[in-house]
């Protein structure tokens, strides 16, 4: 079956399917917990980067969320002042959760949170189907989301009002990461090459959409998530 998959991978690009780097597509791109790991008593807020066909990607607070696992920590999630917040319980409850999940004593406890954006239509044709996603917040230890250092066309590219790139040119994109980090470059303007590598290329052909957005999402092994979005135009 591996050869079938490989063949599909090689020729599948001709099919009329949206590529993983296509921003102009209905989906939850990433869910972020800030911070991703918290000690007892600390709080983490949940938000997401959402893509919608025909609209700009946006950071949003999901309208619905709930704890998927473990059940004993269901009440650690609450909606407060327009934000979903997870509060790490005390060590006694964490110890009980470790027993529930079969974890070693002292191990961080994964709190799996499910989020949904009810107003987004599922593109398969099932109307009003929610687009669910899950995000794990680790309880019992502390860690932060990564800080991104990015370059576009060889120039530092912090968040900017708009990027302007030359058409018909391979525009190098770069983000500093660790080897184990997961990288996704996305765009709604042009074609992305090596979208899942730290060094990628953007090329805007004349027949492509000449303006849209460029985004990069980095995930770390420890659950950290960071993203950056730029409006982009080719001229």
């Amino acid at each position, binding site marked *: *079956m*591996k*050869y*079938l*998959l*490989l*063949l*599909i*991978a*090689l*020729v*599948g*690009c001709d*099919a*009329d*399917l*949206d*590529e*993983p780097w296509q921003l102009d*597509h*209905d*989906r*939850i791109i*990433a*869910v972020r917990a800030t911070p991703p790991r918290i000690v007892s008593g600390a709080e983490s807020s949940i938000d*997401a980067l959402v893509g919608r066909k025909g609209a700009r990607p946006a950071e949003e607070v999901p309208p619905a969320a709930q704890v998927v696992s473990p059940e004993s920590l269901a009440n650690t999630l609450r909606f407060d002042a327009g934000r979903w917040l997870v509060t790490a319980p005390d060590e006694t409850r964490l110890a009980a959760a470790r027993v529930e999940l079969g974890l070693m004593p002292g191990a961080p406890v994964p709190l799996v949170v499910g989020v949904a954006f009810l107003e987004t239509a*599922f*593109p*398969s044709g*099932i109307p009003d*189907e929610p*687009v*669910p*996603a*899950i*995000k*794990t917040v680790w309880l019992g230890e502390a860690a932060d989301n990564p800080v991104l250092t990015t370059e576009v066309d060889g120039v530092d590219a912090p968040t900017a009002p708009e990027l302007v790139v030359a058409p018909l040119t391979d525009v190098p994109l770069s983000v500093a990461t660790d*080897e184990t980090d*997961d990288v*996704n470059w996305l765009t709604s303007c042009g074609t992305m*090459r*090596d979208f*899942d*590598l730290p*060094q990628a290329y953007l090329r805007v052909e004349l027949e492509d959409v000449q303006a849209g957005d460029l985004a990069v999402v980095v*995930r770390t092994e420890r*659950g950290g*998530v960071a993203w950056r979005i730029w409006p982009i135009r080719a001229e």
Partner: protein
Amino acid sequence: MKILRRVVPLLMAGAGIATAQPAPEQPAPEPPAPEQPSPAPEQPSPEQPAPLDPSTPTVPVRGRVIDALGRPVRNATVTVEGTEVTVRTDRDGWFRLRAPMGSTLVVDSKAFGTALATVTGDVLDDIVLLTEAQLGETITVESEAPAAAPGAAQLDRKELQRVPGTGGDIVRALTLMPGVVNLQLPIGFSGVVIRGSSPQDSKVLIDDFEVPVLFHAIGFRAVVPPEAIAALDYIPGGFDVSMGRATSGIVALTTRAGNDKRTTQAEVSLIDGGLLAQGPAGEDTRYLFALRRSTIDLVLPSVIPDSANLSLTTVPRYYDGQLRLDHQYNKQWKLTLSSIATDDIFELFTTKNEEAKSKRFYNRTRFVRVTAAARYKHGPWSANIALSGLAQQFLFESGLYQKINIRTPTITPRFEVTRNEPKALGLKDVVWRTGAEIQSGRGSIDLALPVEQREGEVMTQPDPEDTSVKFNGAVWVTDFAAWTSLAANFDPRVRVTAGVRTEYYVRPNEFSLQPRAEVAVKVADHWKVRLSAGAFRRPPEYNSEFLSKTADSERSQQNIIGLQYEPRDGARVQASAYYTDRSHLITRNMDGSLGNNGRGKTTGAELLATYRGGPWFAWLSYSYSHSTRIDRPGEDSRLFDFDQPHSMNAAVSWQRGRWQLGGRFQLYSGLPNTPITGSVLDSDANFYIPVPDRVNSDRAPIHHQLDLRVDFNWKAGPIAMTAFLDVQNVYMNESIVAYFYSYDYSQRAAFKSLPIIPSIGLRGIF
């Protein structure tokens, strides 16, 4: 050698009620049979028989003499042994004479060896004459050849090479056979899907021993070139006790002994090119050597557009080679050394950046099997002793984390003894066989992979970081097998074969007893009915089963009825119906481990009609099959992954002078698939988990295509040249092979068959 020749007709008749038989001792004549003489053949023999002793009662007898390819042998002499009664065969191979019941007919022809046949009725089964070279190679099969089962067939190399759409590849011609699942592209599995079973449920044997792969990874070619194959036996079920470790069917290739004339052959096409050399090496030794290399890898880089974000650092390519030495040690002993080796490799980056290891795919699959065999034949006894060694490696690396490197050297000693008795215990044509085999291998495994997707499970998007299954160590796999069987004619029209096979699998510590039996009845002159039933096992040795400590062998119970009708010369129709009950199928338990909780059943019917006459060769096959599975007790029945209800092949080929033209029409059902209704994003893994509908509740549309082939032969000095053009799917019907989904399962697209596949080749023999 004379003794060897005498048993060959039995082997080639293969139908169980063969009238051609080994005859070390001249059987005593019997009283005349009560049957009425059959009508005379359309073209009687031109010669009249010499008078017999008038005191000996005789019956009119007719029969046909053919060669190993099923073609009539004209002008062969047929003599009633011990008399002067001799006739010659006509242009269609037919002869007619009067002979005593039970007497022996000696059949001879200049171009062939001698064959014997016993008169058991008014119409004899076909008598097969073999060349000296064929005698040398075929006699070795005598004690090992599977008893023909209902629906089984031996594929003729030269005829099937005429079939369009196979690229001249005899193993690909297997898709002609009823019961074989057809797919536009033979990818995704390296075995053969027979009668609603998984590929691993059937075994592919080369010179009686299993080989790990049948196809090369690219080019859709078998690992053995057609010119190195003597015969291909297709046994879709009900195989005899000498074969095992399979719950469905057997595909057995016999490599070819070298000719008694030295020849060299070269062939090149867009897929591959190769050399084959054969001939005598001394008086009693013959050799055959073949080497082949892919050429598609030379073409591939030029057809991949620059815009493709690919880097083929090692262009997919393959080698394969065969060596066979045959030595006639003395009248009783014949020695054979055969070897087959293949090596497939490719490396690619799905990016132009060759430093991006996360985008790298690397695969190397290679094996070499060496078999030394000694065959003995003396009087009623024959024996086959063989020792076969296999060294194989499968190496696959994907991205930064996923890999599998498995090396499995295996050694297999095997022996079988056969005794033939024309008469024993009041029965006729008694054949007793017994044998044993040990297969022992040590798998050195280093793997880090996702959980294997098993049959019936939903195919997910690959997660390059998923290494849920890790193992680094060695696994010993040793299986013992022993068998015995007895076959005899209870009546000139009824032959019964019964046997039992025992197997012991050391790793799961499992012993099995597998009884099998077959009854063949000649119900009328042109009609035969065969009934077969038996128990079969497959040890848990496929992929992840290797590492499982909870899986035992899978089982099947097969019941087959077959009917064979030969209405006229060169025409044959055979039909069969079967029911296979499968139990202890290895499926995943709720905790993720493997267990034997699956059940399944397959029902089907098959039809095969062939015609060989003059310049024409025609083939029609159709199969109906319905195959279901239940993964765990209490769960609903579902369709099997490779369930293909309908499959039809119609082929015709015409040969005249230098030209050979052929066409083939295929029509078959698409395979089932499981629709995905939604997905859940695991944001940390950046991976979408599919939400499937009912397993295999959807099916790809029916596929049909027309293939054409033209061959042209000419002489260029001492070289006999052949050029061929084989075009598959000439009217470019792009039907759906499978569906695949976007990364988030929100969109579905069809993976379609290639619109047209031309294959051009050139062959020279000198």
